[in-house]
């Protein structure tokens, strides 16, 4: 079985033209792979480039070099060199991403934020909303908030809406940026449970988790990104 995700010598730096062309190296020589049903946790101090690596995999940050291969059966897409529309297709079918903060859109109620991507697929709206309701319930978002746009929610509530949105669609690859950072113990336990369920369904996961308990509970493998930062 080929891995779902494979990074080979991926590298990234920023060139800040407004600061006189200052070059900020981020990571280099990033090598690791993730198999179906496996959870790889990226570890390292703040600023070591963990979130940047997730963003590179999702195609949100561009790579300067190397490969980021996403496998689906016989097909392989290299995110590092893919056309925008290939990356969009990957995001629609293969990759899910839970960002650190919810980017809420004005006027869209929480339930629809969660149902989001799935509801667009024709005829699937009601099913998507049912799935969204179930996840919001498990994550303890009270029903009276479902019809409210999450812009006014607390940080923890927004994060749970964001988690529900990322976990609802079944995608072979899931990227999680600090999914439990501002959650209480009960909700943290729910997220650990949700991750375990995804793994049983064969989802490959790359996660950032500072909390040691969470890391121990979800990680099959820990990749220390400090060495990638040093190489940059």
């Amino acid at each position, binding site marked *: 079985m080929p891995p779902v995700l494979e990074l080979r010598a991926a590298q990234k730096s920023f060139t800040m033209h*407004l600061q006189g062309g200052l070059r900020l190296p981020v990571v280099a020589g990033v090598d690791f792979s993730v198999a179906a049903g496996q959870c790889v946790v990226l570890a390292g101090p703040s600023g070591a480039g963990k979130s940047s690596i997730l963003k590179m995999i999702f195609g949100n*940050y561009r790579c300067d070099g190397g490969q980021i291969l996403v496998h689906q059966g016989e097909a392989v897409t290299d995110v590092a060199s893919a056309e*925008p529309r290939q990356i969009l297709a990957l995001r629609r079918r293969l990759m899910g991403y839970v960002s650190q903060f919810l980017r809420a859109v*004005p*006027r*869209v109620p929480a339930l629809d934020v969660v149902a989001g991507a799935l509801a667009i697929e024709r005829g699937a709206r009601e099913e998507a909303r049912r799935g969204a309701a179930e996840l919001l319930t498990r994550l303890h978002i009270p029903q009276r908030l479902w019809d409210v746009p999450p812009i006014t929610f607390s940080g923890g509530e927004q994060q749970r809406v964001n988690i529900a949105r990322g976990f609802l669609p079944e995608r072979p690859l899931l990227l999680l940026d600090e999914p439990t950072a501002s959650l209480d113990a009960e909700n943290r336990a729910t997220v650990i449970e949700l991750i375990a369920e995804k793994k049983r369904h064969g989802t490959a996961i790359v996660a950032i988790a500072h909390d040691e308990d969470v890391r121990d509970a979800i990680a099959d493998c820990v990749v220390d990104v400090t060495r990638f930062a040093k190489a940059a």
Partner: protein
Amino acid sequence: MNPTPDETPLLEAQGLTKWYGRQLGCRDIGFALYEGEVLAIVGESGSGKTTLLQLLSGQLDPDAGSVRYRTRDGVLRDLAAMSEAERRFLFRTDWGYVHQDPTLGLRMAVSAGGNVGERLMAVGWRHYGRIRGAAAEWLDRVEIAQDRIDDPPRTYSGGMRQRLQIARNLVTQPRLVFMDEPTGGLDASVQARLLDLLRGLVEELALAAVIVTHDLAVARLLSHRIMVMKDGEVIESGLTDQVLDDPHAPYTQLLVSSILPA
């Protein structure tokens, strides 16, 4: 192997160049737009955005380069090789054009229902009841109250006029919509409502669209891909979130870093 329709672009521009005398409008612009894709063209005033939009929609003739559009028979056709009548036909059926100023896209003295119904009549609808029914349905979709259907848009607010213009454009189920600063000149709350509406409609109808805007938040919300223009040239392009979160060109970095957080 023949490419499936999905792999053939809907709209394709190559080497598009336009001069106004010695003043450059835009130079050597090329891209391909596929079905269901939304492309934002961003840049400051005078960067050539609107010139490009007019070239793409066949309202201006380029000095060099070409625009090709895949008509419903699956053939990619050069706009310049089409007759004026054929282009007008495209505008009535396959295309929409949303102006920044709704008075340019609406007939101000004709009722709202008439504004929407007129597009249907242009594509051959004749049954009055059905035309009125479709117009009423579209007014509802753009959140205009049914009891305003017989009022002319000159009695409407700016936000309502813009929503009416959108209904008028979408009622014939176009495949491609051009929008020139669709939220320009509207209050923030009116803008949010319009953006939300546009976002929903674009997704639901799987519309392809080219949106000119100077507002990066509008581009982020509505578009999949983005082209950044400066002095008539495209200086950076790519996935919208990629270009906005990891801008490479000095000018794009300046644009992105110039936004005041609300």
